[in-house]
């Protein structure tokens, strides 16, 4: 286990920002930590990084109590907490060099490498105050991976980025996990982000854990998979499938039929459409994490 929290809690005044949180993140996972704004995501991350002290509970890194590991464990952890704030009056290179020295020193070659990974090698000597938000965000990831950590904790890394920037960061996160074998703990309030990037997730609301597990399993178990089917006559297709008991919901948008049903039902549905003389040109699986998430969060609020 790369990261585990045991009843981790933080109280600010009379309010529990995080209450009895139990998370488990295993090696190689891209773990999405999902929740609405103010749910307690950043507070949890700040506790994990010793920026704030937990009011109760413990946390472990690499199967050892963090209190026993001491600060040395942060050599194996890279983090980007909220917005990436750097020393604006220093260059990106100088910022990374300084941070590297605190971690025991990194070579100039490694600094060049990470700047290349985040595509900032051409602006390395520019002062950070001249960087755009997206560039600072990428530099934030560069400092997180600087010392080749095993675990990378990213707190809302795509906040404030344009669509191109968001895609770049997401691709980078996936690449870090798949190409470099890193474990990623990704906090986000963006459902699509978690849906597209993460293998596992936990949903937190009002400081409490609502659910956690593999994204696929969670969606599968709750039957919230959506399949988009492109057919020549969507109206008739809807009529054909109307009495199918395994379908939870059918919606029609432009020329595409959106069918909410279990994955296992897909071949039968397509076969039924074809048998009824419809021409199926595309079957696109789409999960509907948003529906799932909202149902869980609303349920949590109801309690």
């Amino acid at each position, binding site marked *: 286990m790369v990261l585990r929290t045991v009843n981790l809690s933080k109280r600010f005044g009379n309010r529990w920002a995080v209450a009895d949180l139990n998370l488990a993140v295993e090696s190689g996972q891209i773990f999405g930590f999902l929740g609405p704004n103010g749910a307690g995501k950043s507070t949890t991350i*700040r506790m994990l990084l010793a920026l704030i002290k937990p009011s109760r509970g413990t946390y472990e890194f690499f199967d050892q109590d963090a209190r026993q590991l001491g*600060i040395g464990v942060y050599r194996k952890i890279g983090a980007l907490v909220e*917005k990436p704030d750097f020393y604006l009056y220093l260059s990106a290179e100088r910022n990374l060099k300084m941070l590297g020295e605190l971690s025991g020193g990194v070579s100039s070659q490694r600094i060049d490498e990470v700047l290349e990974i985040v595509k900032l090698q051409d602006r390395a000597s520019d002062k950070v105050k001249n960087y755009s938000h997206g560039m600072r965000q990428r530099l934030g990831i560069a400092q997180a991976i600087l010392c080749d950590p095993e675990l990378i904790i990213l707190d809302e890394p795509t906040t404030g980025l344009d669509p191109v920037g968001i895609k770049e960061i997401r691709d980078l996160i996936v690449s870090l996990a798949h190409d470099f074998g890193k474990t990623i703990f990704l906090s986000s309030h963006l459902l699509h982000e978690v849906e597209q990037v993460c293998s596992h997730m936990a949903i937190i609301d009002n400081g409490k854990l609502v659910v956690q597990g593999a994204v696929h399993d969670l969606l599968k178990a709750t039957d919230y998979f959506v399949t988009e089917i492109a057919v020549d006559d969507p109206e008739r297709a809807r009529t054909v499938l109307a009495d199918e008991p395994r379908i939870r919901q059918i919606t029609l948008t432009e020329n595409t039929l959106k069918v909410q049903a279990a994955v296992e039902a897909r071949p039968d549905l397509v076969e039924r459409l074809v048998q009824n003389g419809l021409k199926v040109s595309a079957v696109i699986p789409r999960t509907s994490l948003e529906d799932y998430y909202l149902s869980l969060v609303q349920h949590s609020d109801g309690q």
Partner: protein
Amino acid sequence: MILIFKATGLELIKIFSKWRTYIGFATITVLVPLIMGLVRRYGFGLEYEATRSLGNSFEFIGSLANGLLVSYYLMNVLWVHFPFFIMLVAGDVMASEGAAGTYRLWLTRPINRLQVVTSKFLATFGYTLAIVLFLGICSIGLGMLIVGGGDLFVFDKGILILSQSDALWRFLLAYLIAAWVQMTVASLAFMFSTWTSNSVGPIIGTYAVIMVSLIMAALKIGALEKIRPYLFVSYFDVFFMPFCDPIPWGDIGASLLKLTAFIALFFGLSVISFMRKDICT
């Protein structure tokens, strides 16, 4: 320990990468040659003030004014004016990181908070030492260059005439002591700086404490005598002691020890505050 030295070096880089650090150096660079030039051109008016009380007993022929005498008088800026340059940096060292959110970067590295606060404190000391010595070197160097060298006449409960070589090493000692005095100011500003995320507050706070303390130390009211030993400004004049004859080593040592106690107190409170602080910015 190595990490603390590394971190101190990095803190010095940060301090000397900010324009506010150079306000003090720039002011000294402009002000000292200006004063020396004016003294050379128009003479040293205070010379008359200093010799007036002794005019009946001594006959002064020529001018007593030289670069060393002007430098000696310039040391008076160390009381009230010069501390501003110290506060400007020391009050910013901790607060600016809180305001900028850069603690998140620093503290998520394998360095503990005690090491962080200690390295920042040492870097603040480095700056303080640098600017005090810069004032000393500028005022003595430029004084001798522009106004000229010679014996130093110290008028304090009589006349003490110090040869140039004797005066120079006393100046060195005086400025080293002055650096320690200014470090008391720096550590107070540093402490305030750990309590806030705005560097203006520590500057105003430190200035307020110094002004109130100086007023309390200056007022000739018997009741205030009781608290005077607990005011750190009561020991500020220690940097003039090397110009006494004989040098009161015991008094210097006692004053420095008390100032050290104040520095330790302010640093200790800074450490406690920072260790317990939740980094929420």
